């Protein structure tokens, strides 16, 4: 479904701050794969997701989604295939617009936007139904400005928007990292529910090893712009946090010092 082929990316090439952020990454996701991605700060996780999403372009390598080579597609054109949720809850929604207006924008992903009314008859009922599945009571607040919502509510809404038109691939970049632990759990549970309901092919970056082990059918660890671990199925199910730490040390020759990753 998603094919990342030998991708390389260097920031600021030819300058003293040159950074080879992605070094020959290849990754194939089958239809319905739910991959969690872990790795220390600066490992290149966000960069890789941005390359898939078209926010950044690779120096070498190709990105193929469902058989379509999208490597040179601009971001907005790729969005037809991709659903995204960002780390910052403010990034996925338009704060000055109402919940229903945000959903209406997401509902038309991939469609030509003409001079028809932005919300048509019957749409609101559908939005209410979908909002109700979040269990946050948002279905009664269709006309409220999104800026009035809490971070968790906004993130849940972003998730709903990213999946309202079923994407070929769902990209999640530490989408629970900015939330308090309880809200983070709610949003993660929602994510699992949505991903399983629709059998979405998902690439989910997380800084929480336990979450990475508990969720999804496959785990990928990145370090210094490379994939240093890729396990799925049975093998993945039996992994422990201790195994991950050991594997990280042997693969990178360093001790896992990232406090952020050890936490929880």
């Amino acid at each position: 479904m998603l094919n990342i082929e030998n991708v390389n990316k260097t920031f600021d090439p030819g300058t003293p701050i040159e950074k080879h952020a992605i070094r020959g990454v290849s990754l194939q996701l089958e239809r319905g794969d739910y991959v969690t991605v872990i790795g220390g700060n600066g490992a290149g996780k966000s960069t890789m997701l941005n390359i898939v999403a078209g926010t950044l372009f690779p120096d070498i390598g190709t990105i193929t989604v469902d058989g379509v080579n999208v490597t040179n597609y601009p971001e907005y054109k790729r969005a037809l295939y991709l659903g995204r949720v960002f780390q910052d809850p403010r990034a996925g929604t338009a704060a000055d617009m109402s919940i229903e207006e945000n959903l209406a924008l997401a509902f038309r992903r991939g469609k030509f936007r003409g001079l028809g009314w932005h919300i048509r008859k019957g749409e609101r009922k559908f939005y209410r139904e979908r909002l109700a599945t979040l269990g946050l009571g948002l279905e009664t607040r269709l006309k409220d400005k999104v800026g009035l919502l809490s971070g968790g509510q906004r993130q849940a809404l972003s998730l709903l928007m990213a999946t309202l038109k079923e994407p070929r691939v769902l990209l999640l970049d530490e989408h629970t990292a900015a939330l308090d632990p309880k809200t983070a759990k709610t949003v993660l549970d929602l994510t699992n529910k949505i991903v399983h309901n629709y059998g979405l092919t998902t690439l989910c970056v997380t800084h929480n090893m336990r979450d990475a082990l508990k969720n999804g059918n496959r785990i990928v660890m990145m370090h210094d712009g490379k994939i240093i671990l890729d396990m799925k199925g049975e093998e993945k199910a039996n992994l422990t946090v201790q195994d991950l730490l050991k594997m990280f040390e042997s693969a990178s020759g360093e001790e896992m010092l990232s406090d952020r990753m050890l936490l929880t």
Partner: protein
Amino acid sequence: MLIIQGAISLGLIFSLMAIGVYLTFRILKMPDLSVEGSIIVGAGMTARLISDPYVALSNPFLITVIAMLTGMIAGLTTGILHTKLKIPSILAGILTMVAAYSIVIRIMDTSNIALPPHGPWRVTTVFTFLQDWGLSRMNAVIVVSIVIVVVACVLLYCFMGTEFGSAVRATGNNAQMVKAQGINTDWTVIACLMFSNGLVALAGSLWAQQQGFASVDMGIGTIVVGLASVIIAEVLFRPRMFWTHLIAIVIGSIIYRFIIALALGVEFMRPTDLRLVTAVIVTIALVMPLILEKFRAAKSRKNAARGA
């Protein structure tokens, strides 16, 4: 009476310009200086087409529409400079503004044109048919302007309610999200700039027809006048919805004209102090929320102290 009528008629005409400024400054959150160019483009185009005996156009309404379209081209230029050629928005606007100055002189073939509203050299404007029906010049301007402002606001409101218009509004809010929803933000930005500059040129066209002349330097300070009306509207009425914003800006624009008329009525003031007064008004309106906030905070502290 004359002062009231004058403030209302100018306020109405310039509310179109203020709405244009609102579209870029507030909706798109992109300060667009090309409006200083499109106002003279609108005025100059109108003056030339109305006064030139070799131009076969005799319908002033058609001429006004053409002037507006010319302004939209100015907006398109700024939009392409900014989105496709990646020039920072302020600079893109300035480039269009500077270029417009030369282009307007080309259009007019001189640096100013008179459009006499009365007498043997009277030209036909969008206001003259009402004058012929017996209305005073002033009232004719007010009636025609009200109709045009209402039509423009209704059309704009409807546009912003469409699928594309909704994408335009979202672009100023969160362009990253708009792209993630599959929208090419280049086009939403360009469209917004075109509507904005079209409205400003429309205001320029009506202004030239109202005051009976167009000159190449009449646009200086336009942006500040527009901002003044927008900020007065926001401070006084605190509008929340798009349509309440539109109404508030029209009223704000008229209030601005009253303030100017009163200020310039003071003995020692000169007409050329207009821009200084405008700058002072904008400054006051801008710091007003800050002062009110301080005032409120002090008051609640006092109340808290009393309660304790």
